[in-house]
């Protein structure tokens, strides 16, 4: 919970090294501001994201999980982001069946230069998660 008692969602982000991680660096270099709710973890490609990572984050109480990769056609590893997308959309359906709102799992393509897009996405994601409230698996006690 935030200092003023408002619900502050906890987000785990897994970002590809080449696009979204670099995009997040770009947001920093440009001193763009976004809500401090997300913790980024770097992998080389969005296709490294094992669905077990996503489920683990939710199990541990993450209110949102964010996966960032390169735009279609831009993947540093040619096709990784397509694989990631097929998998993650299945996982999204899975978590829906498991009672976790699918909007809590967000997949975005953000290029190395799109610091502004990263910021927009984070603003929007935090806003949406605040609307949803804590995850049913949230460990934070009110």
């Amino acid at each position, binding site marked *: 919970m935030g200092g003023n008692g408002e619900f502050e969602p906890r987000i785990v982000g897994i970002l590809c090294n080449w696009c979204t991680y670099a995009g997040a660096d770009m947001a920093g270099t440009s001193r763009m501001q976004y809500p401090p709710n997300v913790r980024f973890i*770097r992998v080389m490609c969005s296709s490294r994201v094992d669905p*077990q990572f996503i489920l683990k984050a939710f199990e541990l109480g993450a209110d949102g999980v964010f996966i960032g990769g390169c735009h279609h056609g831009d993947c540093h590893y040619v096709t990784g982001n397509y694989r990631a997308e097929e998998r993650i959309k299945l996982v999204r359906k899975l978590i829906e069946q498991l009672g976790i709102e699918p909007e809590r799992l967000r997949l975005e393509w953000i290029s190395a230069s799109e610091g502004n897009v990263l910021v927009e996405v984070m603003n929007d994601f935090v806003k949406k998660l605040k609307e949803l409230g804590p995850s049913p698996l949230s460990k934070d006690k009110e």
Partner: protein
Amino acid sequence: MGEKEVRIGVYVCHCGTNIAGVVSPQELASYAATLPNVVVAKDYRFMCSDPGQEMIKQDIKEHNLNRIVVAACSPRLHEPTFRRVCAEAGLNQFLYEQANIREHDTWVHMRQPKEALEKAKDLIRIAVAKAARLEPLEVQKVKVTPVCLIVGGGIAGISAALDVANAGFKVHLLEKSPTIGGRMAQLDKTFPTMDCSACILTPKMVDVARHPNIEIHSYSEIKEVEGYVGNFKVKIVEHPRYVLADKCTGCGKCAEVCPVFVPNEFELGMGSRKAIYVPFPQAVPNVYTIDREKCIECKLCVKVCEPEAIDFNQQEREIELEVGTVIIATGYDVYTPFDAPQYGYGILPNVITSLELERLLSSFGPTGGKVIVPTTHEKPKRIAFIQCVGSRDQRLFPYCSRVCCTYSVKHARQIKEKYPDTEIFIFYMDMRTFGKGYDEFYEIAGREYGVNFVRGRVAEVRRVPGTDKLMVRAEDTLLGQLMELEVDMVVLASAVIPREETEQIQHLFRLSRSADGFLLEAHPKLRPVDTLTDGVFVAGMAQGPKDIPDAVAQGKGAAAAAIALMGMGEVEIEPYFSIVNEELCSGCKVCQDICPYGAIGMTVDGKSNINSVLCKGCGACAAACPSGAIDTQHFKFNQVMAQIEAAMKR
């Protein structure tokens, strides 16, 4: 390693006030000291400085550290620095992890110091969790083929080609059009020295053609790219010219007899060429090309061609090149300002673009260097230049095209030199004539040439009814007055934009583009000619708007980078490859098609096997492997899981 006790040192960088101005590095260090396996935790003003690096080295020895975490900037910036520090202290460089508390924290949460502090702690905890599970790795070395492919034969590509070739490496210079030379060949004079563009360019073109280390592939395009740094395989397609390059002497008799006239692209359609043509007289290679779309196949050319160079049956040719390095110098396009209808381009014939004016000014251009009003063919008495057409326009191209201000000044001066009576008005937003000698060049234009500079955006250009003249309506923002100006001609300083093929090039070489659509460099300041793909460099306008000296400098810079890589003869690649645990592999083949590099094969026992040199470490196979038999070094399953657990701990 597993046996040995994990001893982690954590170093929190102040980065001056970049980090310390938002969060307390001391507090972070004392927090880090409480984390499992952390033996030492310290903070320092600049960890990347010599004393900072020395501190780490000392501690490694003194405290017997076997893992290092630095909480500072992005690992994309200083990971190599600290890895080297570890290596120098005798620690395997891959036992290093960096927490990005600057780009991902203090810079993006400057106004929320309390939350930023919490986040920094979390990021350090995540890094420590990973560090504890890091394993020592050995870098892999691969040979670098001492051959460079340069894509684009403009001035950036030419400059790069000559430097690389002079360093003793083979160069393949690829050009899409029938001749090298690029945009610079279309220019008349160059600012601020007023050198004749052709005079300084064509000798370079000839040097390229004659250089024993350079092979020109004109009229060619890239079809496929495979491989990786040091070992690219590039498939190119050479379009048929229907004229045999080794026989054509460039005598031009064929063009003389050719009955078909075609608007000349080189002259931006203002002049004409034949169906068999060279784009301009100094073309390199000086080989004619038949435009088969326009050719009527009268074969008059065949009759007059003494060397029997014409071959209507010539076919497209595929060539496979093996190269170690690549320089992308594909140049730019000029925006055709149809989306700015207020200026009337395409509707009002007397509204032209600057590049069209450039051709009119050229002594070998369509008018032989005479500037004429297109409809009247008379000398213009009054000309308006409109700056920033498309550029710095949020609806079109938000960036500055960088060259327009100075070239418009150049145009004004050139016209004034030819026709001192012609009145010139330049409508500008603000004059950006930076560069060595440029501002002086601009000053003189106003002071000595009497060019009128009007600060203000032109609202509208319309025809003066019943005449060929144009009415320019603008606001002079300095005087705060609306002005209407009747002119003979309007010249639009149209934006510099990325070439249409940039997207294709981007995908072929797995590059990134910045928001403006130009190719993205690896770092805006420190790695301006590198791209995110190792071994691929970028030069010239392909990377963003720039003038000739900058394009040449970047071409030479890219050449130096390529030379450095090829000069080493081998390159280290990060050992982030994936490994199959054959005990667990059932040969389900799920991984086989996933690998974009064909790095995964099968052993004779039907188990997956990964070629560590071909593998680029994306980890797609590890994530996919349904038996958990594949893992990716440095991004191992247990490492990432530990990071996730650490992220959610509090």
